[in-house]
Structures are given as structure tokens and as C-alpha cells.
């Protein structure tokens, strides 16, 4: 059981590096979609017993993170007619190396954290930390509005992984609320992205610089 869990988490970690290494925005979207769908299966693997609520959350997470949100992002991408992230703040290879470093640091750091005995042997906490860091790297080093949104999604995925340890604390209604918030946030963001593209003829957030002191 712990083996299956850990191999899923290793896949999540590898998808992080994929997302950092590609310049095609469509590939980033696909990678993050796969990661989201993978995360949807985690609660089932982690807790073994299949209650109705857990199944519902898993199904909704997979649909939302694996299908609906990537669909919305792909549509936005089609509308804005761009394909690649050009000139990121640091290059793609350097991003991958940075991501790998972040993963190593997360593994070392999690080893020193005071974890409950049940969680010490799994990769849940280091994966969560590494994924959050990957999200930040994407958010900071990429300039296309859509890639930044993907960075936010990866960040959110990392937090979701940590939340796996705390199912009792997050009742069904709250889980549903979190998913609803995520959906609405992406929906609103896609609308703004579209407006950015119309008003600035570009998705480069460096053009959004008229408001300053």
C-alpha cells in the first residue's frame, strides 16, 4: 500500500520537472492535468476504505483537475493564438535543475520535520513541499499569463497533497467548497486572460506595468 502510494508520488514529482522543462504551453497544461488526475486517486490509495464521500471527492477532483480546468485553459490558449513561453526569466534547463534541487531540499527538510509516526515512511510531505516550490518557480520565472496560472495550479496541487494527511479535519462540505473556489478562480482568471489578450495584444504580464508609483 505504501509502495503504491510512494510510486504515485514519485510520478507527481516527475511531472513537476516535466512542467518546468517544456516551453510549449499546451504541454504544460497537459502535464498539470495529468498531475491533477493522479492526485485525485491519492485519497483512495491512502485511506483504503471506500466511503461514498471519498469516492465523490476523488471523482470530482479527477474531473475538475484532469478534464474541466485543462479544457478551459486549452480553450483560452486557442483564443489567444500563442504556443510557447518565450524568454522565461531563467532558461528551461536551468528551471529543471532548480526544480530538482528544490526536490532534494524538500526530501532533506522533510526528514528533519517532526512528523507523526504513520507519515514518516511515506513521500507525502516531501512531495507536497517540492510541488509547492515548483509552483512558485513557475509563477516567478514565467511571464505568459497562462503559464502563471499553471504555476498557481501546481502550487495548489502541492497543498492538496499535504491535505491528504488530514481527511478528518476537512469534511466533505469544505472539500467541495475548496474545489468550487478553485473552479471559480480559474474561470474568472480565464476571462481576465482573454481581456488581457484583447487589450494588450499579448499575454506577456511584463506589459502590465502602467500602474506604479
Amino acid at each position, binding site marked *: 500500500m505504501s509502495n503504491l502510494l510512494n510510486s504515485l508520488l514519485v510520478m507527481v514529482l516527475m511531472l513537476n520537472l516535466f512542467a518546468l522543462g517544456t516551453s510549449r504551453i499546451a504541454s504544460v497544461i497537459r502535464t498539470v492535468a495529468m498531475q491533477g488526475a493522479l492526485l485525485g486517486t491519492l485519497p483512495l490509495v491512502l485511506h483504503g476504505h471506500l466511503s461514498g464521500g471519498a469516492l465523490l471527492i476523488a471523482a470530482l477532483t479527477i474531473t475538475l483537475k484532469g478534464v474541466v480546468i485543462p479544457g478551459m485553459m486549452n480553450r483560452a490558449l486557442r483564443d489567444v493564438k500563442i504556443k510557447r513561453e518565450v524568454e522565461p526569466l531563467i532558461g528551461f534547463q536551468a528551471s529543471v535543475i532548480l526544480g530538482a534541487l528544490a526536490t532534494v531540499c524538500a526530501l532533506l527538510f522533510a526528514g528533519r520535520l*517532526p512528523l507523526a509516526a504513520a507519515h514518516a515512511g511515506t513521500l507525502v510531505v516531501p512531495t507536497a513541499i517540492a510541488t509547492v516550490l515548483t509552483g512558485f518557480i513557475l509563477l516567478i520565472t514565467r511571464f505568459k499569463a497562462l503559464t502563471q496560472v499553471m504555476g*498557481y495550479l501546481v502550487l495548489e496541487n502541492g497543498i492538496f497533497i*499535504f491535505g491528504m494527511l488530514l481527511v478528518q*479535519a476537512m469534511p466533505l462540505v469544505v472539500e467541495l*467548497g475548496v474545489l468550487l473556489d478553485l473552479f471559480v*478562480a480559474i474561470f474568472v482568471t480565464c476571462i481576465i486572460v482573454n481581456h488581457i489578450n484583447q487589450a*494588450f495584444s499579448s499575454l506577456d504580464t511584463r506589459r*502590465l506595468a502602467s500602474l506604479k508609483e
Partner: protein
Amino acid sequence: MAFLFIFFPVVMAALAVLIPSDRWRPWLLPAAGTLHAALTGVALARHAPLSPTAWLALDPLGKVILLVVSLLFLFCSYYAAGYLRNRGERPNRVFCVCLLAFLGIASLVAWSRHLGLLWVAIEGTTLVTAPLIFFNHTQRSIEATWKYMVVGSVGIALALLGTFFLAYAALHAGHETSLMVHDLVQHAPDLSKPWLHAAFVLLLVGYGTKMGLAPMHTWKPDAYGEAPGVVGAILAGGVTSCAFLALLRAYHICVAAGESVYVSRLLLLMGLLSMAVASLFMVGQRDMKRMLAYSSVEHMGILVLGLGLGAPALFGTLLHVVNNGLTKGILFLSAGNIHRAYNSKSTEQVSGAMRRLPLSGTLFLVGFLAITGSPPFGPFISEFMILNGAFTTGRTAIGALFLVLLLVVFIGMGATVLKIVQGRPAFAARSTPYRDSVLTGAPMLGLLVLVVVIGVVLPAPLAALITDAVRYLEGRP
């Protein structure tokens, strides 16, 4: 009761979707505001015992925030009806729907006794206010909305991680994981300290981003600058108060855990930093709405500083939440009127506002005097109490720094405000048709009356409400 608070604004929002007329739809806002204020009156008067297992219950802290949001929304709703009549050229369906939805979600924030639910609601306030900032559909407002969404969402995501850490602190201590405020406060002394510390830092950064504490305040001048005045009032008085409630919850748990030294050091640092950054950017500020945004950063700093000072300053801090919300209402609403009349918010074009718009111009000046802590207005009382708290706890240096920063803000903000209200209006400004009207004038006067009443007599029911909240926060029954 809780469901009524949350669902009737949502039903009104659904109604706003269905009404086809841009002329009649805005009248739903005053209707909702009035009904909500009446309900709030009933809810505050009731003394139901707090059930430890209820997700939705109104504890004394929630009552204070509910009061601020409800009063501010009441006045803003009438103003919004007048504002939208002047802005007949823009469709207002999304605006009305989002404003009504905000009222429902903000009520959920005040009622929520589960930290996960609280997070969902606060993220909700970000989502429904983003389209409000976007109301003018200009390039600048797109930029402001984008920054608001990105910075706000990332910040609030960190707050979710902090919330999880809190639950993990309980799990690590061998308790059943729960995010109910009641359970966490009960088990606080056993919580795992490293996780609790990490949780507080993340919650402070996350909800602090939402409040606009420096250095996470960067979205604030942009968002407040580009949003219509009435939205600025809702953001500066309503959304920030909601985020502050979340921070109060985290503070409550940490103090119950005996970690008050650790948290107060962080809070004092953030508070002073926010005040310092705000005062720096306020000096020589040409844009009046951006100036108000920095004033909001400053007052969020004051709130956090007051919290950091602890027991002797808590009454003043909670009173300051009320004062700040109401006074920011006066300032943003009058600034909105001045913006309409001059078609500009820069001191380069705007001068002589007291001649051009006697009511709004005067109220802008009075609002400035109130927010900077001049007697006889409410903020004077609450800021004085916080200052007093600094000296009684023996933190003389912090008290002195607090005073100096207040003075710098007074001078910096005063220079800009005087440029706006004094002098003669330029010819271009005299030719626009905009005049003060009952709907856009009376709400400001109403807010002013409240601020003066708090400053002069401090009504007994309000004092009792805040005393209850302080007792609750300190864990005394």
C-alpha cells in the same frame, strides 16, 4: 439564522441576474443592505450560548466583524444605487450580482467556526470582488484585476497550507484532527509547537496578503486605485475586516497555546513595517485613490500592531476595526464623487473640490482628519487606546515609533488632501455635469454621524460587544 444571513443575499443575487433592466436592478442593493442590517441588529441582540460542535455560530469576534460589514454595506448600497444611475452607460448586472454575493459570503466569514470553511469563504470574497475592480473595463483596470487575482490567490493558498499545518499540529499531538475553532482552542496547550509556529507564519503571510500588510501589499494601490469608489470602500472596510477576523482566529489559538510572545513579536514587526511603508509612499502621492490605499495599508498595520501589543490594546484594536471600516467608507465614497466630477483622480487635475462639490469636498477633508486620528472622531479614541497599550506594556520605543509614523502619515496625506480640496477648480472640471445628490451624499453623512458618535460617546452596546470579544479572545468566560 445563519442560513438566512448567507442565503438571502445569494437569492437576491440570483434575482439580480434575472432582472433585465439596468435602471431598476441596482435597487436590489439598498433592499439587501437594509434587510441585512436589520437581521444583524437581531443577531447581535441575541445571547445564544455557543455550541462547540456548530459550524455556523456567531461568537463575539464574529459579531464585531458582522457589525462592520453590515453597516458599511448598508451605506454603500444606497450610494451604489446613486452611482450606478450616473454610470448608465455601463451594464451593471455583474456588478450588482457580485456585490450581493459578497454580502452573503462576508456573512459566512463572520459566522464560520470551522477554519476550513472560513478559508473557503475568504477565498470567495476575493473571487466575487475581482469583477468589481474590473467594472470600468479599461486597460488599467485589467492590470489591477490581474494583480489582485494572482497575488490574492497565491497568498490565500498559503493560508490554506497554514490551516492544514494547524490541523497537523493537533494530529501530531495525538488528538483527532479537527479544524473547529472550539476544538483547536481547547487542545491548544497540547499542539505541536513547531507546526503551530509554522502555521501561524503561513496564516499571517496568507491572510496578511488579503489584508494588504507590507510587504505583501503591492496589489492594493493598483486595485483600490482602479476600482470605483464604492468598491474601494467595500474592499478597504469589508474584505480587509474579514481577513483580519481570520488572523484573529489564528491569534486566539496561539495565545491559548501559550505562544503569545512568539506571535506578538511577529505581529509587532509586520505592523510597524506596514505603517512605515505606507507612510513612505503616502508622502508626495499624487493619486488620491492610491493615497487611500496606502492609508489602508497603514491602518492594517495599526490593527496588527495592536494585536501584537496584546491584552491592554485589544479593546482599542477591535474598536479600530469598526472605526477604520466606517471612516474608509466616508473617504472612498467622497473620493469616488470627486473622481466623477473631475474625471481624474490626480492632484494635477483635481483642485478646489470644496467649491466644485461642497459636500463631497468637505467630507473628504473631514474623513482625512478622522482617519489620521484627530479628535473628536472614533479613530482618535481607538488609536489612543492602542498607544496607551504600548506604554502600559512598557514598550516605549514602539509607542514612540507609532506616534512618529502617525505624524508622518498626517503630514504626507494632509499635503495631498489639501491640494485636492483647496483652491479653484480648473475650467474643465466646472463644465462636467456631475453634482452631489441625495443618494451619493447622504450615505457619507450617515457614516460620519456614526464615526462622530463613537468618538464622542462610545455607545454602551458597542462597548459591551467589544468587551465581550476581548474576553473571548483572552479565554475568559
